[in-house]
């Protein structure tokens, strides 16, 4: 029995990574949920939006590195982030102007808008592959670890190490700042309140003189900021690959639905639920049990519920279960 060592192993392989991944999913799911709340459709192009913003961040990072600009020990990408955000805002507003606005004016049903967003997905996908290519891009420079596993061992004398990557802590800190700013905006500013009012009751918002086109524009701007930040954090933590970002759509939608579509708090909680489920269902617990059980009971197998190849099956199952048993999500949301 060695509970402490078991806990360190859990922290190292589940808790720390899941907090980082959960923050990234939460930021992504927030973008999805805002579009559902205000524009009333599920935006399939959200993964691509994230990829587009991140791509610009990467291009700017390369430029900065080329001219020798750096903010070591932090990754250069943080410096490039504002440019990525601006680029993402531009593409998202252009898409709205040339695609979604038409369907909005025609008062199309949500499913038509969803299909339109699927078309946008393909176009953006092509654009991204054309500009940066389909391959893997590693752009996290700067220091790699805050605590290395080996240093943790020598520091504490434990047999197990706990590593915390710089990107993981940047993810958490950035996510906290962005979410705090978002909630301040939604709850304290007039424009933010008008966004909530519009999402709550579109007709009454009109009767109050709230301009829907302005609300829509501000929503897209916020969505672009969230998407670029989420995409950049994910890319820093792992790598950037266009197809991976498309795949992220599933866990992000699962997070938004679990929390209740249209509900920002729900999106955050949902992000962490999905992240913790995905990682803990696919982790091999052999080491943990070896510490917890008497020596001769130690497991010989990996004690892994699902292979990591099946991590998307976890999100998918949660998504289906929630839709079956609680379509409005944990927090009250729309059931579309």
């Amino acid at each position: 029995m060695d509970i402490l060592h078991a806990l360190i192993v859990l922290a190292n392989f589940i808790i720390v990574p899941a907090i980082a991944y959960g923050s990234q999913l939460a930021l992504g799911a927030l973008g999805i949920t805002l579009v559902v709340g205000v524009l009333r459709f599920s935006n399939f192009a959200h993964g691509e939006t994230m990829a587009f913003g991140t791509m610009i961040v990467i291009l700017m990072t390369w430029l900065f590195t080329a001219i020798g600009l750096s903010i070591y020990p932090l990754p250069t990408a943080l410096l490039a982030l504002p440019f990525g955000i601006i680029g993402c805002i531009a593409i998202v507003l252009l898409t709205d102007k040339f695609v979604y606005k038409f369907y909005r004016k025609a008062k199309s049903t949500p499913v038509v808008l969803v299909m339109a967003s699927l078309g946008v997905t393909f176009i953006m996908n092509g654009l991204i592959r054309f500009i940066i290519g389909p391959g893997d891009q590693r752009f996290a420079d700067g220091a790699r670890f805050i605590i290395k596993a080996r240093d943790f061992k020598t520091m504490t004398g434990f047999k197990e190490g706990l590593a915390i990557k710089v990107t993981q802590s940047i993810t958490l800190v950035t996510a906290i700042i962005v979410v705090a700013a978002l909630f301040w905006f939604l709850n304290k500013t007039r424009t933010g309140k008008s966004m909530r009012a519009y999402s709550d009751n579109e007709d009454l918002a009109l009767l109050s003189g709230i301009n829907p086109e302005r609300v829509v524009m501000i929503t897209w701007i916020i969505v672009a900021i969230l998407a670029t930040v989420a995409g950049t954090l994910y890319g820093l933590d792992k790598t950037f690959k266009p197809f991976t970002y498309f795949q992220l759509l599933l866990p992000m939608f699962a997070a938004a639905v679990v929390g209740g579509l249209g509900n920002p708090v729900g999106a955050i909680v949902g992000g962490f639920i999905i992240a913790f489920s995905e990682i803990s269902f696919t982790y091999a617990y052999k080491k943990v049990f070896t510490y917890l059980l008497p020596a001769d009971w130690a497991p010989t197998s990996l004690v892994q519920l699902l292979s990591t190849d099946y991590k998307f099956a976890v999100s998918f199952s949660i998504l289906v279960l929630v839709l079956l048993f609680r379509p409005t999500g944990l927090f009250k949301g729309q059931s579309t």
Partner: protein
Amino acid sequence: MTGGYGTGADILHDCTVAVNKGEIAVIVGPNGAGKSTAMKAIFGMLTMRSGQVSIDGEDITNLSPQDRVAKGMAFVPQNQNIFTSLSVEENLEMGAFLREDDISETMHQVFDLFPILKERRKQAAGELSGGQRQQVAVGRALMTQPKVLMLDEPTAGVSPIVMDELFDRIIDVAKTGISILMVEQNARQALEIADKGYVLVQGENRFTDTGSNLLSDPEVRKSFLGG
């Protein structure tokens, strides 16, 4: 006004309603007569085939609903007339969305008119009772400092006591110089406080007179007030 919803058939046929400054005009009529439709037409929420809408002598037939808010019109629709997920205070703030000046004075006036709203101002409006919600709805509309306040069945679903209360408050509002155009199901009580009454049937004006004349008109009594 003549018009209907989208490309559908006309629902209003040459229907006319008007209200003078500081007066109360009431529209009554059977279900489906087009009362709510008339209100929406006045507010520019449906396509009009012909006719015109004006305020203070100014033609506003081609203005969007938002622009009509700016011109001094406020509308409390029959259904979904509050932001349920916003607090009472935020509902009032949203009512004053177009205003650039200080709104705290108007908010005080609304709180004086409906003291319960002050008590509940941090609570989500969706958690209030039916009568309290109607107060939020009327309060939200008053926040624009309108010249004309349009109310579609403000007393729907509230108890008789609260209904009398609301009518008293509506009279108070009219006394401040705001014109009130109101659709009411409780025709008798509504016509009692009305300066002018309209009986609408199948999208047409059937009777138009002062409230008290309509109340004493035997034909109106027989067909629309239940004897």
